[in-house]
C-alpha cells in the first residue's frame, strides 16, 4: 500500500485530498520541492538544489519534470545528485523556460514529477567502467559515478565541453574518481592537473574498460558508438510531452521495437540502438 498525495491538493478540497491508499506499484511521484540553491556554474549553466520527497528517484540517469509558472509543458531535466531529501540538477539555459528557471529564487516551491525514466544499470559496470559525458549530458553521470564507486568499481571519466567557459563539476567528479577524470575541450582552452586535452572525447578514451555509460549531444553519442569496444549504455534526449509514457511524443525505433524515450528510456543499451538515417 502506498500513500498517494494527490498533488492537485491546492485546487481540491481538503476532504478529498488526504492520503488515500491504493494498491499497486508505481515509479513516478508528484510533489512540491523547495529550492535551496540556484547558482551559475559555467556559461549559461546553472546548478539547482531542491528539498522534498526523493523516494521515487531510484537510479542514476533518471530525470525529473518541472512545472514552471507561465509555461504549459513541464521541463525534463536529469538528476545530477540525489540523497534522502535533496535533489540537484544542472541545466543549461537554452530557451525561455530554462531562462525562467535560472531566475527562480531559493525558497520558492516547484511542482516536480520525480522518478521518471529507467536510468542506468549499475549492475553491468564491472571493475573499470568508463563514463563519457558531453556538455549538458555530463550531469547524470555524476550520481552514476558515485553509485559505481560506492559498489567498489573504479570509474574512469572523460568529460567533453566546447570551451573552458563551459566546464563545470570537475571538482565533484575528481572527489569520486580522482586522477581517472579527464577534461576535454574542443578548442583546447581548458587545462588542469589532467593536462590540456584539445579535441573530442573520443580522442581521449582509455585503452581498456569493462563497460561504458554515456550521455551527450547526438553527434557525440554517434562517435562514442563507433569508438567504443565494449557493451554500454546511452542516454538520449528528445522533446517530450508528458515525460511519463502517456503521449507517445518522444518515441524512437530500436532493435527491440518502439520505445518511449521518457518511459522505456532515456537509457538504451548499445545493442538496442537504431540511429535515425
Amino acid at each position, binding site marked *: 500500500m502506498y500513500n498517494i498525495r494527490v498533488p492537485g491538493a491546492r485546487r481540491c478540497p481538503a476532504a478529498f485530498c488526504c492520503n488515500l491508499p491504493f494498491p*499497486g506499484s508505481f515509479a513516478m511521484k508528484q510533489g512540491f520541492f523547495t529550492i535551496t540553491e540556484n547558482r551559475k556554474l559555467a556559461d549559461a549553466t546553472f546548478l539547482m538544489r531542491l528539498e522534498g520527497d526523493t523516494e521515487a528517484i531510484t537510479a542514476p540517469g533518471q530525470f525529473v519534470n518541472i512545472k514552471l509558472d507561465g509555461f504549459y509543458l513541464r521541463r525534463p531535466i536529469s538528476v545530477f545528485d540525489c540523497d534522502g531529501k535533496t535533489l540537484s540538477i544542472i541545466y543549461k539555459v537554452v530557451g525561455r523556460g530554462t531562462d525562467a528557471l535560472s531566475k527562480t529564487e531559493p525558497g520558492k516551491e516547484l511542482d516536480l514529477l520525480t522518478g521518471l525514466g529507467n536510468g542506468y544499470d549499475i549492475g553491468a559496470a564491472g571493475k573499470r567502467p568508463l563514463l563519457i559525458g558531453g556538455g549538458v549530458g555530463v550531469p547524470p553521470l555524476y550520481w552514476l559515478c558515485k553509485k559505481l564507486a560506492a559498489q567498489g568499481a573504479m570509474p574512469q571519466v572523460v568529460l567533453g565541453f566546447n570551451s573552458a567557459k563551459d566546464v563545470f563539476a570537475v571538482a565533484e567528479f575528481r572527489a569520486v574518481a580522482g586522477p581517472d577524470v579527464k577534461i576535454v575541450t574542443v578548442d583546447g582552452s581548458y587545462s588542469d592537473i589532467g593536462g590540456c586535452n584539445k579535441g573530442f572525447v573520443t580522442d581521449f578514451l582509455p585503452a581498456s574498460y569493462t563497460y561504458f555509460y554515456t550521455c551527450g549531444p547526438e553527434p557525440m553519442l554517434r562517435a562514442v558508438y563507433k569508438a567504443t569496444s565494449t557493451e554500454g549504455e546511452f542516454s538520449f534526449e528528445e522533446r517530450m510531452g508528458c515525460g511519463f509514457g502517456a503521449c*507517445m511524443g518522444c518515441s524512437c525505433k530500436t532493435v527491440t521495437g518502439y520505445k518511449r524515450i521518457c518511459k522505456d528510456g532515456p537509457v538504451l543499451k548499445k545493442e538496442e540502438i537504431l540511429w535515425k538515417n
Partner: protein
Amino acid sequence: MEKLTETQVNTSVNLCGIRIDNPVIPASGTFGYGYEFAKLYDINELGTFSFKGTTLEPRFGNPTPRIAECTAGMINSVGLQNPGVHAVINTELPELRKVFHKPVMANISGFSVEEYAKTAELLNGEEQIGWFEVNISCPNVHGGGMSFGTDPKAAASVIDAVKRVTTKPVLAKLSPNVTDVTLIARACEAAGADGISLINTLLGMRFDVRRRKPVIANTMGGFSGPAIFPVALRMVYQTANAVNVPVVGMGGVSSAEDVIEMMMCGATAVETGAVNLVDPYASLNIVRELPVKMRELGISDIKNIIGIANK
C-alpha cells in the same frame, strides 16, 4: 441559493444508453490504454476513458520531434502510434481488465472505410468496450484520419460502415478544421452515429527562429490545451444545436468548472486531453472537484444543466 449537501448531488449521465458515474472522460491519446495511470490512482473513479487511437496494423507514427509548446497549450504530431488492433485485443485490453471494471471507449482510426470497419469488427467482440469513438479527425496522418472528417459524404460512409459491424453505440469524433462543423455532424447523425464527440486538435505550427526550421519534424501538428477551450465550446454549442444525438465535448478542458461550462453549452459528457499530460492526476482531481463545484453553483443533478445555453 439552496444549500446542497454532498448526497444530494448527482453527477451521473447517460451516454448513448450507458450510464456513467460522472461525465469526466480522459481523451484518446492522453491516457494510453489506461493501466499505466492505474498505477497512480484508481481509474475506476473516472466516468470512463477513451483509449489510444487504434488502427488495424501497428503504427510507429511520425518522426520526432513530435511536440511543440505554445502559450497555454501544445502541438503534437504523434501520428497515431499504436500497437495495432490485434495487440490491443491480446495484450492491452487484458491488462486493462485487471484494473478497470467499467465500459471503456474504443477510439479507432483508419486509412480506408474498410479499415475502419475491420478494426471495429475485430473489437466488437470485446465485452469491456462500451462505445466506439470513430476518429475521422486526426490531423497528423495523410490519406486517412482528417481527410474523412472534412467531407460530409466521406464522414458518413465511415460511420455507416462501422455501424454495420457493431451493435455498440458509435460516436463520430470530429475535426474543428472545417468551415461548418454542423454539416459533418448532421451527415454522421444521418449515417447512424449514436453521438458526436468534438473537437479534435486544431491544425497548428511553430517555427524555430534560431534553427530556421519548423519545431515539429512533420511541420504541422494538432494544437490542444486551454488556449483552444473557447473554440471548442463554440463548436460544441453549434453542434448540440444541430443534432439530436448526445454530444461529447472536449478541447482545453482543465477544471470542473470547464466541465460544467461545456455541459451547459450542450455536452452530455466531457473529455479531458492535454491537461492529463501536464498533470497526471488532473482527471481524478476534476472528478473530485465536480460535486464541490456543483454545490457551489446550486446544481443538484448534472443532467439538468446539459444544453441550457441552447434552449
